[in-house]
Each structure stands twice: as C-alpha cells, then as structure tokens.
C-alpha cells in the first residue's frame, strides 16, 4: 500500500474540505485511508492516498502539480477514487498536468471535484493525457464549482486514447454558481470495439462564456461513441458547442446530441460535425436550441410557482 501525505497544513486542508463540500463532494471520503484520493490546492498536494492496484505520483511545479496515476493491469478498483483540485484565494493560477493510464483489463471510477469558491481572477488549466488500455474501463465524473463571481477562467484539455475493447465514460458538470469562462477541449481516439461516452452539462448566467469542443475519432472497427451535451444559458451568457465525430472504420457508430435552452439575451451556437470516410461507418447527429417548454412552465405556474422559479426547476431538471 502506498500512502503519502504531504504538506498537511491543517487550515488549508480545512479550507479545501469546505471548498470540496460546496462543490458537492463529501469531504469525509478524502480522509478515509481505505479510499484512494488526491487533493491539490494551488500547487500543493495536500493529500495523495493510493491503494493497492493504483500507482500515484505527484510533482509540485511552479503553478501547479503534475500527476501520474496508473491503474495496474487487471486491477478492478472497487470504490471510486476521489480527486479534488482547487484554489481557495480570489486570484491565482493553477496548472494541473495529468497523466492517467488504466492498464489492460483494469477498471476504475474517478470522481473529481474542481472548486474555486472565491474566484475573482483565477485561471485553472488542466492538460490531461488519458490512456484506457485494452478492455479497461474508466469512468470519469467531474463536477465543477466556480463560485458566485464569474471570475474563473477554466481550460480543461484532454487527449484520450481508448484501446481495443476499452470503455471510457466522461461526465462533466458545471451547473451551480457561475461559469466565468470555460474552454473545454477533449479529443478522443477510439480503437476497435471500444466505447466512448461523453456528457457535458453546463448552466451559464450573466456574461459567462462557454466553449465546448469535443471530438471523437472512431478509428477501429465497431468502435462506438456518443457525445451528449445539455446546455442552459441565460441573461447575456454565450455558448459555442462543437461536437465532431469521425467514422473511419467499418461498423463504427457515432452520435452527437446537443440540446440547449436559452433565455434572455443569451446567444448559443451548436455545430455538430460528422465526417465519415468509410462506407460502412455511420455517424448521426441532432442539435436543438430553443426556449424552455411553455407547457412545462405554465404547468408549474399553475401549481403556484412564479415564472422564473418554474424555469429554474425545469432547467435544473434538464441538467440533473
């Protein structure tokens, strides 16, 4: 069992616990030594707890931390691994380098919370290389909380490779508080018989700017993918969605699905792109941008809610 605990400045741990909680996490899991976890505040590793089957290495850099995580061959990690990245101050820069490998036949679920509860001028960059080995499974759930001020600029970038028979499920959600500026950029290569599912849910308000770029290349025979995006934007927020799926191999199947609701002066653009250069591949898409369903709003108003309360409930349901 590898167990390292570094830089345990207790007040900082408390602050991160609180920040983790406001982002929707249960901070007790970060202190349970039976569970693998990693907590990074700014460029400090507050807690790095690997368990059997997981190799976890961290290196503090000037503005962040480089993380290397390997799920060893054949290990199926029974409980989720909890990750928390954050910055407590109002301003600052955090750069996370993530090198993740799920070796052949391994399985793991990563539950990440990224929290910047006081952000006024914060930049958070994540550069991730994810490797999902042959027949391996990676579930990655990432919940963000950027505080109420709209002062976060968050730039997650990932290059993902799914080997033959591998499965990769990514779930990104940023639905409470402000977004600030989000530039989400994921690029996935899917080999033979692999599965890739990416879901993003974002709620933008005031002058939030949301940019989502997701690309899947179905390189191997029978590779399958779904890109699903649910966006709600209101007031003066702007969103731009690009979901690209390329079908290069026989019997590869892909689908891009974007549903957006807009209110106020918000502006949305959704571009699903499908490219197919193999006649036996099939890639489909649907995109819809519209206002909140009138019947749903009126039903809730007929139960006594104000119009904006009704809209809020409907939008939160869509993003749940």
């Amino acid at each position, binding site marked *: 069992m590898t167990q390292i605990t570094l830089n345990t400045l207790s007040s900082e741990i408390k602050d991160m616990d609180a920040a983790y909680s406001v982002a929707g996490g249960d901070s007790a899991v970060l202190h349970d030594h039976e569970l693998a976890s990693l907590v990074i505040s700014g460029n400090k590793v507050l807690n790095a707890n690997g368990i059997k089957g997981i190799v976890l290495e961290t290196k503090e850099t000037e503005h962040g931390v480089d993380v290397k995580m390997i799920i060893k061959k054949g290990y199926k990690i029974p409980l989720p691994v909890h990750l928390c990245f954050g910055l407590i101050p109002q301003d600052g820069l955090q750069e996370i380098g993530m090198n993740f490998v799920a070796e052949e036949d391994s399985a793991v679920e990563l539950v990440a919370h990224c929290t910047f509860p006081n952000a006024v001028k914060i930049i958070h960059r994540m550069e991730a290389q994810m490797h999902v080995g042959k027949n391996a499974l990676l579930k990655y759930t990432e919940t963000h909380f950027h505080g109420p001020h709209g002062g976060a600029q968050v730039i997650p970038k990932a290059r993902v490779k799914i080997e033959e028979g591998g499965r990769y499920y990514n779930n990104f959600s940023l639905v409470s508080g402000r977004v600030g500026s989000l530039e989400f950029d994921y690029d996935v290569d899917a080999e033979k018989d692999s599965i890739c599912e990416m879901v993003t849910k974002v709620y933008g308000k005031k002058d939030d700017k949301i940019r989502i770029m997701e690309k899947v290349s179905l390189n191997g025979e029978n590779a399958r993918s779904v890109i699903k995006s649910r966006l709600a934007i209101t007031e003066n927020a702007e969103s731009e969605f690009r979901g690209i799926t390329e079908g290069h191999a026989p019997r590869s199947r892909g689908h891009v699905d974007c549903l957006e609701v807009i209110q106020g002066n918000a502006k949305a653009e959704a571009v699903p792109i499908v490219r197919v250069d193999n006649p036996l591949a099939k890639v489909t898409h649907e995109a819809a941008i519209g206002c909140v369903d009138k019947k749903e709003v*009126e039903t809730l*108003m007929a*139960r006594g*809610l104000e119009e904006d309360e009704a809209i809020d409930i409907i939008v939160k349901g869509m993003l749940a």
Partner: protein
Amino acid sequence: MLSRDGKKILRGVNLEVGDREIHSIIGANGAGKSTLAYTLMGLQGYEHEEGSLIFNGEDISKLSITERARKGITLAWQEPARFEGLKVRDYLAIGAKDNGGATEEELKEALRKVDLKPEKYLDREVGETLSGGERKRIELASIITMKPKLAILDEPDSGIDVVSLKEIVNLIQTFKENGSSVLVITHRKEIAAASDKASLMCEGVILRSGDPLEISEFFKNRCIPCDSRVSPPKAA
C-alpha cells in the same frame, strides 16, 4: 370571449361552478372545452377578452397564472408536459410548497390515490421513461398535494385504461370531499354520471347546464356532429 385569427373560439360562456361541486363539461371535439380551461387558468395566449371572471367574489380576469394558482385554481392538461429530468417526488412537492410543503407520507398518499405504487414511482423521472397514462396520473397526483379550491381537469380519463377509470372517478370525488370544486372536461359517461352538474359546450358556447345524465343524453342524441343536428347558436 376569446378569438383567434379573427375567429371567436369562445363566444358565449355563461358558467357557474358551485362550492364543492363536481361540474362536467361535455361537447364534441373542437367545441372549445380545452380553450375554456386555458382561459380560466389564464394561460398565455388565452387572456380574457370580454365579460367577467369571478372567483369567490373576486374578479380574477386580469390575474396571472401564478396569482390564480395561489388563490387555489389549478389545471391538469389533456396532454401533460414531459419534464425531462424532473423527479416525480420533486414534482409532487411543488404544489404543496405554498401550504408549508408535503410530508413523505402525503407524497405517497397522492400516488396511491391515482393508483400508482409509491415505491415504484416516487424516485423516477416524470419525463422520459413514463408512459402517457402514467404521466397523466402523476399530473393528477401533483394537483392532489396542492389541495386546490378549484381543480380544472381536462379529460383526466383520456389515455387511462378502463380499469383505472373507476379510480379517476373516486379521485374526483375525493377532491370534493376534501373541499375542492372540480370542473372536469370529459367524454366519458362514468365521469359525467359522478358529477353534480354538467354543461354542454358547442362551438364556443355553453348551450345548456343541468343534470349530468340529462345533458349527456341530449348531447348523445341530438348534438353529434355538433354543427349538423343542432342549429349553431347565435354569437353572444
């Protein structure tokens, strides 16, 4: 009075629903029954144009949907909304919000009243996975928790299987027992028969009101199709 593209959809509606009265509205497809329900609820595009709309002595014709709902008026649609992602539990609780919220037991009881097993439905989503009939019952349940003074039910029987029709009739009676008045639009004799009073609607006009069985018979024998057997009433 309500017009669309210059055509008057509701032309002469003279209707009174008494305290704790079950009042059914019957009439042919396209007669204007749903339009009447929407106008009473004050939905957008169905604003009251002329005449008065009095609820418990107060003119409510200029009030918003929310204001009418807070006075105790509510509506169940002929085709309920879908609500992607909304949990049944949360939907049912909404109506009770202004009465201090609903207990877990009250939510379960509301589902039992519409013949749905609480343990099976409480944590499901209203939208995607439910059938049309199930969604309809859940909508009725969402009204039960609201304890309305006037429940407007637009064809609560449509999409409901015959076995459950009896439950719907019971439900309407429960509303009455709990102090609500019910205005129910229906094509079913069983529901009309359980009413205290009925009104017949034809081409935007309430032709006559009275004993439910008499009104049903009149409609069945002389009024179908509406425009050929009964000379169209003059615009009010």
